[in-house]
């Protein structure tokens, strides 16, 4: 059921810019505002945000995680760190890593 909705109505996650727009919704932005914000940050139009053909290239250029398995590109936490910087938002897992790195220097018990 949710697959039908995903295919028919959703932005498409990391195939497109769906995850990025979703992150702005977590900051309480409604959809049009969230799309405009992300589009401005990426330098694309709001229509482009859902275009998987265009976004595959845009995501690789910004190195913010792509949907296909491509060696050498940022994945997981590294991709999210770049997303946090690009969108100028706090991503909790990235902040968690920063805190861990700042806590006790590696090699010190």
């Amino acid at each position: 059921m949710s697959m039908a909705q995903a295919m028919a109505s959703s932005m498409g996650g990391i195939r497109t810019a769906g995850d990025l727009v979703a992150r702005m919704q977590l900051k309480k932005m409604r959809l049009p505002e969230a799309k405009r914000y992300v589009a401005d940050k990426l330098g694309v139009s709001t229509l482009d945000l859902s275009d998987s053909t265009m976004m595959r290239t845009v995501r690789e250029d910004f190195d913010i995680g792509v949907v296909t398995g491509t060696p050498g590109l940022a994945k997981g936490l590294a991709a999210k760190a770049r997303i946090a910087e690009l969108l100028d938002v706090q991503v909790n897992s990235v902040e968690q890593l920063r805190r861990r790195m700042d806590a006790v220097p590696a090699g010190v018990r």
Partner: protein
Amino acid sequence: MSAIITRMGDGSTVELTRDELKADILEGSEAAAKKGKIPALSESDVEYLLEMFCCPSRIWGVARGHEAIMSKDGGTNTLISSRLSCGIAAPIGREAAVRLFESAFAFDTMEVGHLDYSVKPSKFIVTVEAEHMELLQQNTVLPLFYGFMPNLGLYYRPDGPFENPSDLMPNGRIAEARATQEEALEACYADVVWQAKQMEDTGADGINLDTVASTGDAEFLATLRACETISSETEMAVEVSMASEMVLGFHGQLEYRGTRLAGLWPHQQMKLAEEAGAAIFGPVVNNNTRRSCAWNVARAVTFVKACTAEARIPIHVNVGGGVGGVPMVEVSPLDIVSRAGAAMIEVGGADGL
């Protein structure tokens, strides 16, 4: 006049004429307008729904550029659970399942949740939950929630320690029924906040409180208060997703910030969720299995439109089994699911599903 193949709210196929479909759409919208004291759909909204239901295409979608955001409830139960969650019991673990939702199914957000999706059973194994969330935060890119249901019903006997108001009320023990709900909601509130805070250090992006108010106004109050605490004391966003279109007044006198909770409709529930600090609100509109899907979708969209018209936070409409116009069946029909979802966005103004 040629007949159009469509469905009833129980999923069964039916043939209706164009005029019958239009009558159902108008009637469904009027039914919502009357109940919720909200505007009915406009002429252009009705025409959109009519065109959608008359179209013979198996799948209907939003126009390009109108795509919205999906959030998920039930975690990965769709893949790893049984028919209880309309699941397919796929032989994979939760971590693989979340990765599939991210890459193969291209969901915008995803959720980690326990198979037994309520706070009361899942709090005992919260370290497992936290570990899986933490591991997934290393490997995923999309926003990842931790989700569970407050499910106040599990706090009452025989499942929980508190007297069951369903046993007290038929015997006329109303004051005691209210008292036990007031006690139980405090325990539920404490558990929801505790469970959420266990996710704080995992890097979780948000908490999804699902099927809220399934046991009425006491559960809604516990959830609103928990939302207030979680959103103010942690960095996690909170999604509040309802169980039913109207908050049942099982207690009847509970209030949140001066607003009585019993009898609230989606557009009224949304305002309280906003005040409580929710980042996303998920309204529910129930189905009538004896009416056509066109009637049900029109009714649901009318309620949703009233919600989105005044919302200051994103609205992710519940479009699932028996809600949001989707038939109440174990295996949902794609023709109706795709139509209901698109209607919520194109006509209802939803920010997501």
